[in-house]
Structures are given as structure tokens and as C-alpha cells.
């Protein structure tokens, strides 16, 4: 027989609440474990030389991550330069055409692109840029930073488009109407009135997008490929932090592991700080209506 006494119901209620809180707290333990691991192992290999020296050939002690650091910066810059203008413009288009058939198709396309697994995007980067360029130049140009950056930019697009669209949707119609009533041309209204009002949301989307692609490895495996030497030529293979971590972590050498821990420390600090910063931007710069 079921016990419906009030005492038992209250006890059940409390047990449920405590276990919900308990399990929730347990599930963030991995975060601390990862951070602790990376901090403990990574901090030891970090010094000035670590940042300015390139990677050494296998077997030699020492070496740093300078080529990977510069490679990541270049890759992110390329992706940024392609994805930000393109993504913001598409976001304006979507927020402008709320009901058109084409826009709803585009919205589904954005969802689809967001759902494309990162490794498949790597294949796409290979098929679109690496292979044609290599055929065109007789193999002189194959894997390149350009291909890597382009692949990352496709990955970054959905978050920029969505955040732009969502933010612009929230801006009151009266603002647009006031600008138009003053005789401001439509494109100026959009670019100089509506866009600045939604800037905080858009910047957040961009920062989160950068944080996401800075740590991506899979799309770079067949595009940027990795490079043990310093390279700033965007038509040559280039190294990146996640690629370096992947290659070193799966190698059997202890000192390569140490470099990988140091690189992980740098990468995770960068990505997490960017994440936190992006959220602060929302809070601080939000225009209130």
C-alpha cells in the first residue's frame, strides 16, 4: 500500500532536492579535474623560451610552441576576416526578412551548417581548396593555412549569423522608424543605427565563435595539416595549437607530452578567458530599451 502521509511526502521531496543538487555538483567535477590536471602539468613547462622557440625535431630536448601559436593566430584571423562580415550581413538579411520563404530556407541552411560534424567540414576544406589548388599548381600548393582558415570560417558562420539575427530582432521597431522618419536612408539606418544598438550581442557571438574555432582540431587535419617549422605563408601548411597538442599527446615521448601540457594550458586559458569575456560583454554593454 502506498504511503500518502505528509511526513513521507516531505521526506521524498527533500531527498529529491538534495540528490538533484548533489548530482549537479558532481557533474562539474570533471571541469575542475581537467583544469587542475592542465594547470599542474602545464605550468612547469611554461617559460619565456616556451613562447618564442619553435618546435624541435623528435628526440631533441626542449623546444616551444611559437610556430603553433602564430599558426593559430593566422588561422583565426583568416576565418575571422571571412566569417565576420559575411555572417553579420547574413544576420541582417534574416532579421530583415522575417517572413519570406527564401529567408526561412536560409535559416534551415544555417541550422544544417551548424550540425555538420567538424571532421566532415575538414573533408570539405580538402575537396574545395586543397585538392583543386594542388591539381592546378602541380602539387606545389596543397595543404595550406588558407584552406584551414576557410574551413574554420564555415564553422564560425552559424554562431555569428544567429547571434546577429537574434540581437537585431530584439531591437524595438520604433528605433528603426524614428531613423527612417528623419529621412535617413534605409541602409544607413541598418548600418549606423540598428547595428550599433545590437553591437554587444553581435560581439558576443563573434567572441564565442572565435573561442570555438581556436580549439578545433578536426577541420584542420586535412587542410592546414600542421607544420613543425615556423611558417607565415598562408599558402603553405601551418601548425596550430590544437594540432600540436593532438600530435604530441599521441606520441610516446615524455618531453613531448610536457610541451603538449604547456600548450593545453595556454589554449584552455585563452578559450576560457574568451568565454568569460564574451559573457561580460553581454552584461556590460547591453543597450537597455
Amino acid at each position: 500500500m502506498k504511503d500518502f502521509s505528509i511526513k513521507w511526502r516531505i521526506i521524498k521531496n527533500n531527498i529529491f532536492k538534495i540528490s538533484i543538487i548533489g548530482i549537479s555538483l558532481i557533474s562539474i567535477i570533471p571541469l575542475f579535474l581537467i583544469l587542475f590536471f592542465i594547470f599542474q602539468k602545464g605550468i612547469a613547462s611554461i617559460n619565456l623560451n616556451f613562447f618564442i622557440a619553435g618546435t624541435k625535431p623528435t628526440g631533441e630536448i626542449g623546444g616551444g610552441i611559437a610556430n603553433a601559436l602564430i599558426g593559430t593566430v593566422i588561422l583565426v584571423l583568416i576565418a575571422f576576416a571571412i566569417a565576420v562580415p559575411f555572417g553579420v550581413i547574413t544576420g541582417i538579411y534574416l532579421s530583415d526578412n522575417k517572413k519570406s520563404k527564401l529567408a526561412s530556407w536560409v535559416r534551415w541552411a544555417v541550422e544544417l551548417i551548424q550540425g555538420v560534424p567538424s571532421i566532415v567540414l575538414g573533408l570539405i576544406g580538402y575537396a574545395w581548396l586543397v585538392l583543386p589548388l594542388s591539381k592546378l599548381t602541380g602539387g606545389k600548393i596543397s595543404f595550406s593555412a588558407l584552406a584551414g582558415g576557410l574551413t574554420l570560417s564555415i564553422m564560425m558562420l552559424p554562431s555569428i549569423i544567429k547571434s546577429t539575427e537574434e540581437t537585431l530582432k530584439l531591437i524595438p521597431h520604433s528605433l528603426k522608424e524614428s531613423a527612417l522618419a528623419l529621412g535617413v536612408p534605409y541602409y544607413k539606418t541598418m548600418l549606423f543605427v540598428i547595428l550599433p544598438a545590437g553591437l554587444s550581442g553581435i560581439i558576443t557571438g563573434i567572441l564565442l565563435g572565435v573561442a570555438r574555432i581556436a580549439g578545433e582540431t578536426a577541420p584542420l587535419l586535412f587542410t592546414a595539416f600542421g607544420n613543425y617549422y615556423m611558417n607565415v605563408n598562408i599558402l603553405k601548411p601551418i601548425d596550430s595549437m590544437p594540432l600540436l597538442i593532438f600530435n604530441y599527446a599521441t606520441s610516446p615521448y615524455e618531453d613531448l607530452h610536457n610541451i603538449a601540457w604547456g600548450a593545453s594550458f595556454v589554449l584552455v586559458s585563452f578559450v576560457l578567458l574568451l568565454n568569460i569575456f564574451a559573457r561580460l560583454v553581454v552584461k556590460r554593454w547591453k543597450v537597455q530599451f
Partner: protein
Amino acid sequence: MENQYLNSGDKNIGVEKSTPNILHKKNWKLKEKIFKIVLLFAGVTILLIIGGIILSLLFSSIPSLKKFGFSFIIGNEWDPVNEKYGALPFLIGTAMTGFLALLISLPFSFSISILLGEYFKKGLLSSFIKTMTELLAGIPSVIYGFWGLFFVVPIIRNVEMIFGAIPYGVGILTASIVLGIMIIPYSASIGREVLELVPNDLKEAAYSLGATRYEVIKTVSIPYSISGIIAGIILSLGRALGETMAVTMLIGNMNSIPENIFAPGQTIASIIANQFNEANNELHISAMIELGLLLLVMSAIINFLGKYIIKKLSVEG
């Protein structure tokens, strides 16, 4: 512009002002048009990108599609040397890791969604858990893999020794555990959003009848949002299927059907990551790209399904 006219002196101001004004108006219409065209162009380009992705995958996998046809999916042998390509071991590996990861993450993501969507919508504990799960989501996949290699693998190795299994350390279970941790933030955030859609008057009605909070959650909130919760689970599965780096580092990379959850295996994503750069003949590359196409179709269907359910729920709610 304005300053220029002011500084140009006081003679002929009217003339100078009127000419540019007309020009300005013409320009203005042209710019307006260009602006609209640029917007449209950007939208269309997005359609072209996704269309291009699907078409070029399809096009590049023609050699393999022609040669193997349907047997590509049911063949259980993957042997590049003898040009035999069957994807069944990877399909099974992908399904095993995906579902196992889901199973592992479920109690945790469920608790977090209830905590944030019901108990603590605001306040210190809520923002703490929220921030922490967001940071968990922000950690790159390759870092999860690296950490898994040095933290989870030794633990699993000890467990395997206790059970008398071969102590590989790496394998389906190891990959699933780390994958499960990785998808907690994702499914938790969907769960929270769905629970927040439950109308307050329904819950208040239950409270006014004397129900405890547990009873309200069990009999009102969860039944009301069950389709959304299922959608969240479906979407997390989609996320888990496409995850590459951590799985590649932890699954052991063996191209055969895994016998049990301790055995090493291979997922679709991990075989592509492992072998694509070594593939040097057309058929091998084409078979790889067909695997990619398969993965894309699977995750697209799953994503579509999940998002469709959620969209329907939020329109009704």
C-alpha cells in the same frame, strides 16, 4: 562632407549645396539597391554553401558508391590493402559510443536541467552551475582527449584488470565516458530551456492542491515537457556522433566490430581522422568521403528531428 562646404568660404554656398544634393539622392537610391542585393547575395551564398557541401560529398563518393553500392553499409571488413571497404564496424562503433555516452550523461544533464529550470532559476548556486557548465562546454575536444588519455585510461585499465578483461585502457567505454562528460552541458541547456516553457499556472494549480515540489516536477513539469526533453536527448546524440578528436584519441582505433564495451573500436569520425591523410588511391579517398557523407546524413536527420520537435513545442507553449 558638411564641414567641407562650410570651410569652402561663404560665396556660392547655395549653388554648391544644391548640386551635391541631387547627386546625393541618386547615389542614395543606388546604394539602397546595392545594400539589398548584398543582403540577398549573402543569404543565397549560405544556401550555396550547404548545397555545395552535400553535392561535393556526393560527387566525390561516386567511385565508392558505384563499386560497393549497398554492401558498403553492411560489409564488416575494412581493408585498404585489398581494397575492401565495409563500414559496418564503424557504424556499430559510432552507435555504441553514442548511446553509451548518452546513458552516462543522462542523470547528470537531467539533474542540472531540473536544478536550473525548476529549483534555482536565479541566485548564486544557479549562476555558479550555469557558468561552470558553460566553461565545460568551452573546453576544446582535443583537451578532453588528452586528459582522458592520462586520467580516464589508467582508471579503466585498473577496472579491466579487476574484471579480467584485456587491459587496453582505451576502448569504447573510455571514449564514451569522456564523450558523456562532453555532452552534459549541451543536453542540460536544452533541458533547462524546455522546462522553463512549462506554464506557471499549471504548476501553481498543482501547488494549490497541496502537491510538494517533487510531485509538481514529477506530475506536471516533466510530463508537460517530455517531448522537448526527448528532443534534447536526440540533439545530444547528434552532437556525440560527430565528435571526433577526443574519440579518436581514446577509442583504440581498431577496424573491427567491437566485441564488448571494453574492446577498442572505431567510429566513423575517428576512422576518417586516422586514415584520410594516408589514403592515396582514388577508391580509398572516395570510401572515406562516403563515410563522411553517411555521418553528415545521420547527424542532419537527427538534428532536424530534434529541432523540429522543440520548435513545435515552443510554438504551442
